[in-house]
């Protein structure tokens, strides 16, 4: 390859559920540290795209690549290991674990110490655990949550839970982050904080983001490019201005 491969490249991606095409012919390319929005009416298949890209569902058609590496057929944890992490539309935290433990779980894949090491509490165990503790606290500090580290996750306010989910995803050390409606249910202040956090992680981690969002002002504000899907198919692509003027998009949102 002469040119550097895009971070994410999906070709003709599609899935059928019993004859129903939930997603069809989905093509997308996301470059390094790009932020792309994925929008569409309710039930258009946005979350299904995320489920395909994270190995929750296996595509029945098409392929997708992360940095040129084929991802089809990989299980969720293998996709994560390769470098795609996500958040969920309806927050999925480890509710009864502490905030810092939530983050530490995601660091697990880069931890090496063996079971014997753990049981004998060897030097390696302590070294890695201390390292991870430090990293997790740094990550929480990034989101201004370090003082909450020992709280139980389910006791956090809603906005903080969203942020914790993003922090946990970041801990997997990924190249592509999929955010599923991160601003859903947030008040304007919380949305503002979220925006700040997203900008911060882009600067800091140099990662690419694919974002599903209903809050149009948020999408128009921060996305460089937008992909619009309806009934599982892409109906428009382009910059926020292009997309917002596209008659197909307007029709899809207003209904014909």
């Amino acid at each position, binding site marked *: 390859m002469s040119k550097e491969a895009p971070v994410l490249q999906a070709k003709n991606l599609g899935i059928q559920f019993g004859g129903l095409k939930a997603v069809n012919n989905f093509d997308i390319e996301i470059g390094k540290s790009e932020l792309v929005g994925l929008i569409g009416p309710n039930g258009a298949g946005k979350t299904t795209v995320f*489920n395909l890209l994270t190995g*929750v569902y296996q595509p029945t058609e098409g392929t997708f690549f992360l940095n040129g590496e084929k991802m089809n057929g990989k299980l969720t944890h293998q996709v994560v290991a390769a470098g795609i992490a996500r958040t969920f539309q309806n927050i999925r935290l480890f509710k009864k674990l502490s905030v810092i433990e939530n983050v530490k779980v995601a660091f697990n894949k880069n931890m090496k110490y063996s079971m014997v090491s753990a049981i004998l509490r060897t030097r390696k165990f302590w070294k890695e655990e201390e390292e991870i503790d430090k990293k997790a606290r740094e990550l929480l500090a990034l989101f201004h949550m370090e003082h909450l580290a020992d709280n139980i996750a389910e006791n956090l306010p809603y906005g903080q839970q969203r942020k914790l989910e993003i922090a946990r995803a970041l801990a997997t050390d990924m190249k592509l982050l999929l955010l599923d409606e991160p601003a859903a249910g947030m008040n304007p202040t919380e949305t503002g904080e979220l925006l700040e956090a997203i900008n911060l992680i882009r600067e800091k981690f140099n990662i690419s983001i694919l974002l599903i969002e209903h809050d149009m002002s948020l999408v128009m504000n921060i996305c460089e490019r937008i992909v619009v899907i309806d009934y599982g198919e892409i109906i428009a692509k382009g910059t926020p201005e292009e997309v917002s003027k596209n008659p197909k998009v307007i029709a899809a949102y207003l209904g014909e």
Partner: protein
Amino acid sequence: MLNVSLFIQSIVNGLNQGAVYALVALGYTMVYGIIRMINFAHGDFIMVGGYTLFYTIPLMVNAGMPAWMSVIIAIAVCTIVGVAVERIAYKPVRGAGSMSALITALAMSLFLENLALVLFGANPKSVPAIFNLPMIDFAGAKLPGKALITLVIGLAIMLLLQIFIKFTKLGKAMRAVPQDKQASTLVGINVNKIITITFAIGSALAAVAALMYCSTYPRANTEMGVMLGLKAFIAAVLGGIGIIPGAMLGGIIVGLVEIFVKVYLAPGWYEAITYGILIVVLLVKPTGILGKNIGEKV
């Protein structure tokens, strides 16, 4: 050469055994369908039925009535016990998670067994004969009349239950609640009442199962419900738990497999074979033979 009469005998015995399992399995499946709970005490309702039969058959006979009429009293007693267990123990833990529900059910099972131990003692009671029917000759096979009659009773009850569930208003409500509790409430179904009725019907069926069981094995003891209940539950899961025809199918399969393995394969291994079949079915089709697969929404 296949021995035809032994074969026919085995079929009848298998179906007879299977009908007992099916009746008990129905109780498990209906309760599971409605509140997603394995009612481990259900097997012990059979024990309650067994003891009721032991104590009431002599009274019936003395009053000049046929012995099997005792089943009416057994049905009443089992229904009361079943509804009481649901109201007192299960209702308060509903919504506390499946772990709590499971443990509560195990505890109620323990409670009923030990209550019986305190009340009736550890020695088994032998239940008087329920049906005095001659052996029947069929194609060279000698079939016990009581096996045939219990088989007929079992099948008739399953048919009635199916008609009740399919065509009556109450039956339809009972099918609606497992689908969507909230929506059922919205259309005016009293969910608590339906749950109670489900327990009542399940327990009544356990009483009938007790009658059928005791006509073949005329003995009541405090642990009679444990293995029977466990196997019936296996039958319910095998057929697809929560699905009424599944319980019947599962019951019949388990009954036939047990008898045939006992007679033709390896007498000591019949239980292991049943459990083995269950494991294989669940691994191939995790929701049982008639079950529908439901994935978790992400």
